[in-house]
């Protein structure tokens, strides 16, 4: 009997339940952390149950299955990708609020255990990169790109379904890890030898390996699909240099996905071999070398940064042009700059580990290569400003995100140049300065871009507009919350506070961690505003219907902007819509 049980459940025991330790150990820390973990697990279970009950109550199982889950339509797959991204975004923001709350009271202690904090920063990072950012941009490109080039669907619709399934499976694994704990504590980078069997024998790292492997496979396939579609399925007359800028950035991102994702699939695969089959790729003994993992990881990791940021660049190019009522400034220059960034992104990975003991020649060369990326990026920023120059600017919700992006992103660029300076990086590497920098790139860059795109193209997808008042509130909460939460982290990093510390002992840190905690609460408000915006928009969808009383049928301001950007002449009636 026990053999049968162990062959079914393996290492899985009752202690995997988040409330198990709480039942045996009644110390306050265990109780607090047990309650938090159990609450999170409860939300997963209740959320899943609520979804099942809702679909059954509406009698929509057949509709859901045949119209959505098995649909090869790129528009529906794109929307499903975005739904995954939004669910995961909500979870990862809540985790971030817990981490900031812990550090706000973390002088000499706090309320979270080190173990719990380790799981929080690992899941937060893993989710935000692999299960929020990647599905979000994949979803947007999936929806918009074929429409922009006049294709009926992607080249490989079934492959697209497979990609969605792989991402969904990975996201599900991360969610299940809340119920059957624990997750890895090795951070989103999962550096061995800490993640090797000898130091981490539990199931946490295995969750991480499989979730990330599924996600990277999904993204590689998606990249192939996008690139082939753009090269082969453009409508007649849609020459490469007539493509809208968003499609150009989608193309660059797709190429980066094809070459950037496999190194991580390989790295996590080799780590899995180490753990399951006693290989010694990254172990400390028997010839293993963890430096190989670090190189492989960042051979993925740096292109990944540009996979995440190029689609938002394309989105903002559309948004600036549309809401300035004007052609994009320097279309060709922007295309060239995007291509420069994509190529250069493969030449800088070493700047993620300047402190690992390479020679000064190597560090300096990679530092300079990193700064070269600043040139085309700077040109793009000025191109967007010149797009607004002599325009007629409407501060719509997508435009508010774009303005927040352009002003905050240059600050992140500046701190990026600082981090790319090897001599200074020796001081601020692994500190909260680094954390502040990449959030400075990913929140105003990636997330604002995605939210801007959602507001911009939502009417195209659903036939009604997103409500504006809650949209503005969300945008301003995001901008203010970001500044409050992350500017203090720059100061903390300069004061030498390591990232990933559950507690600290320097009283000088306290005012800044409290300020960052307040910022996290404002970001939580932003999340609530987003949900309310969605709710109010759906409630009032008939009032906001874009079909009502319009003889043209589809007043597609977004598409007008895109076509204008590509230099395609438009009939007068459509042109008027943007002014």
């Amino acid at each position, binding site marked *: 009997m026990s053999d049968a049980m162990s062959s079914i459940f393996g290492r899985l025991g009752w202690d995997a339940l988040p409330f198990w330790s709480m039942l045996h150990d009644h110390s306050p820390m265990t109780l607090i952390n047990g309650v938090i973990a159990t609450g999170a697990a409860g939300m997963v279970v209740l959320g899943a149950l609520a979804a099942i009950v809702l679909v059954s109550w509406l009698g929509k199982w057949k509709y859901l299955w045949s119209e959505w889950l098995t649909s090869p339509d790129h528009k529906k797959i794109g929307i499903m990708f975005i739904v995954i991204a939004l669910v995961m975004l909500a979870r990862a923001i809540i985790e971030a609020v817990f981490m900031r709350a812990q550090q706000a009271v973390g002088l000499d202690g706090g309320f979270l255990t*080190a173990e719990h904090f380790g799981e929080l920063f690992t899941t937060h990072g893993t989710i935000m990169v692999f299960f929020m950012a990647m599905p979000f941009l994949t979803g947007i490109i999936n929806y918009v790109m074929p429409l922009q080039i006049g294709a009926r669907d992607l080249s490989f619709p079934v492959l697209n379904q497979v990609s969605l399934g792989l991402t969904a499976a990975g996201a599900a694994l991360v969610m299940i890890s809340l119920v059957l704990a624990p997750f890895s504590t090795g951070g989103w980078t999962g550096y061995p030898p800490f993640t090797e069997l000898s130091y981490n024998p539990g199931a946490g790292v295995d969750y991480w390996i499989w979730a990330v492997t599924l996600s990277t496979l999904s993204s590689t396939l998606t990249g192939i699909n996008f690139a082939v579609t753009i090269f082969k399925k453009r409508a007649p007359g849609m020459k490469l240099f007539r493509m809208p800028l968003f499609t150009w950035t989608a193309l660059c991102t797709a190429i980066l996905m094809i070459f950037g994702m496999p190194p991580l699939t390989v790295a996590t695969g080799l780590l899995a071999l180490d753990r399951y089959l006693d290989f010694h790729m990254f172990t400390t003994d028997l010839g293993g070398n963890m430096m190989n993992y670090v190189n492989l990881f960042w051979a993925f990791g740096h292109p990944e940064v540009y996979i995440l940021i190029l689609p938002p660049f394309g989105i903002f190019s559309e948004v600036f042009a549309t809401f300035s009522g004007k052609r994009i400034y320097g279309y060709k220059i922007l295309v060239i700059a995007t291509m420069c960034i994509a190529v250069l992104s493969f030449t800088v990975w070493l700047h993620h580990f300047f402190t690992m*003991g390479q020679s000064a020649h190597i560090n300096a060369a990679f530092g300079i290569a990193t700064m070269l990326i600043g040139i085309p990026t700077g040109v793009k920023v000025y191109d967007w400003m010149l797009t607004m120059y002599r325009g007629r600017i409407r501060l719509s919700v997508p435009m508010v995100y774009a303005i927040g992006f352009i002003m905050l992103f240059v600050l992140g*660029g500046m701190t990026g140049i600082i981090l790319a300076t090897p001599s200074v990086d020796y001081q601020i590497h692994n500190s909260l300065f680094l954390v502040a920098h990449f959030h400075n790139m990913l929140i105003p860059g990636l997330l604002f871009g995605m939210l801007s795109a959602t507001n911009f193209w939502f009417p195209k997808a659903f036939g009604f507009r997103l409500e504006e008042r809650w949209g503005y509130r969300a945008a301003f909460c995001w901008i203010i919350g970001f500044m409050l939460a992350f500017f203090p982290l720059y100061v903390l990093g300069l004061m030498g506070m390591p990232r990933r510390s559950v507690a600290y002992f*320097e009283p000088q840190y306290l005012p800044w961690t409290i300020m960052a905690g307040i910022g996290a609460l404002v970001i939580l408000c932003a999340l609530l505003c987003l949900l309310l915006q969605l709710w109010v928009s759906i409630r009032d969808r008939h009032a906001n219907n874009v079909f009502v009383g319009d003889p043209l049928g589809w007043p597609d301001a977004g598409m007008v902007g895109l076509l204008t950007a590509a230099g395609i002449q438009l009939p007068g009636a459509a042109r008027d819509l943007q002014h």
Partner: protein
Amino acid sequence: MTGQGKHSLQRNRLYPLFASLILLSGCRADMPGFMNPQGPIAQAQRHHFWVIIALVMIVVIPVIIQTPLILWRYRYRGHAVYRPKWDMSRWLDIIMWAVPILIVAILGVYIWRQTHELDPYRPIAGDQPPLEVQVVGYDWKWLFIYPEQGIATLGQLVVPVDRPISFELTSATVLQSFFIPALGSQIDVMNRMVTRLHLEADHPGRFEGKNMQYNGEGFHRQRFVTRAVDDDAFNDFVQRTREQGQPLDRDAYAIIAQKGDNRDVARELGLNTDDTDAVIRFSTVPDGLFHTIMAGSPIDWSAMTITPPQQGTTRTSVIGGPSDNDTAPSSDHPSSSHDRKEAQP
């Protein structure tokens, strides 16, 4: 951290932004980290930090100032000029590319030079020969071995002021990063590899030292105090350690190799654990301990012969598995084997 108010005030005048930062934080000259540098490396790093900001500001400031101006001037209901088809200007393009290229060119030369100048592997020139310190990272503590003095400490690193310190570092467990912010650079420490670091303290004082790379639940407690003292006090420290410390024998080493922080070690060794900054002193150390740990061989507690460290030609010397047997510094131990060493948790 120290009472270097006068120096800090002078520096504040040079760096107004820094002044405003610390005024905001309300902690004036006691701001930890390299913004209040206590050694030449940290001082140079702070200088470079502000030089880079000043150069990059040439590109950043126009964006931050002009974006709101453009938004206002070309607002929808304004009456500014409207040119919907204007999308190219050769002169603006030339400026847009030329300015960043020029800045990156200047930065490139600057970075090339300062990266070499501040390379952690580069010895610091000084009147006195550098003090050799060997650092071993454990979960979650640092062991400091003074090979010339034949002593070791835990929880406190004591160094003489105005004398370069030459570190050799390795890890007995996972990847860690050794860092004393007030003095200068951090460097990664890895099992089976040696990294190097050179620092110097300008002023006497107590500075925080830490691990920057997450290595488990005791990570945030992996701290130590760096005490920079004058030469007499340093000699006094060495003398006291030899007299009062206990030998770093097999039992003591087993305690260090367990998971736990400085206080756990002190408790297990039967020392007073009330003072978290307390130094744990070891009067004698087995010869070649550092390189034996690094190579992952069993430590020979009886051998007192000095095994000269052999280092590979690469800067991060890797001592690998069985195939590298002849290069391992401990190969003269007859018992040398490549099983996981007993120190491994």
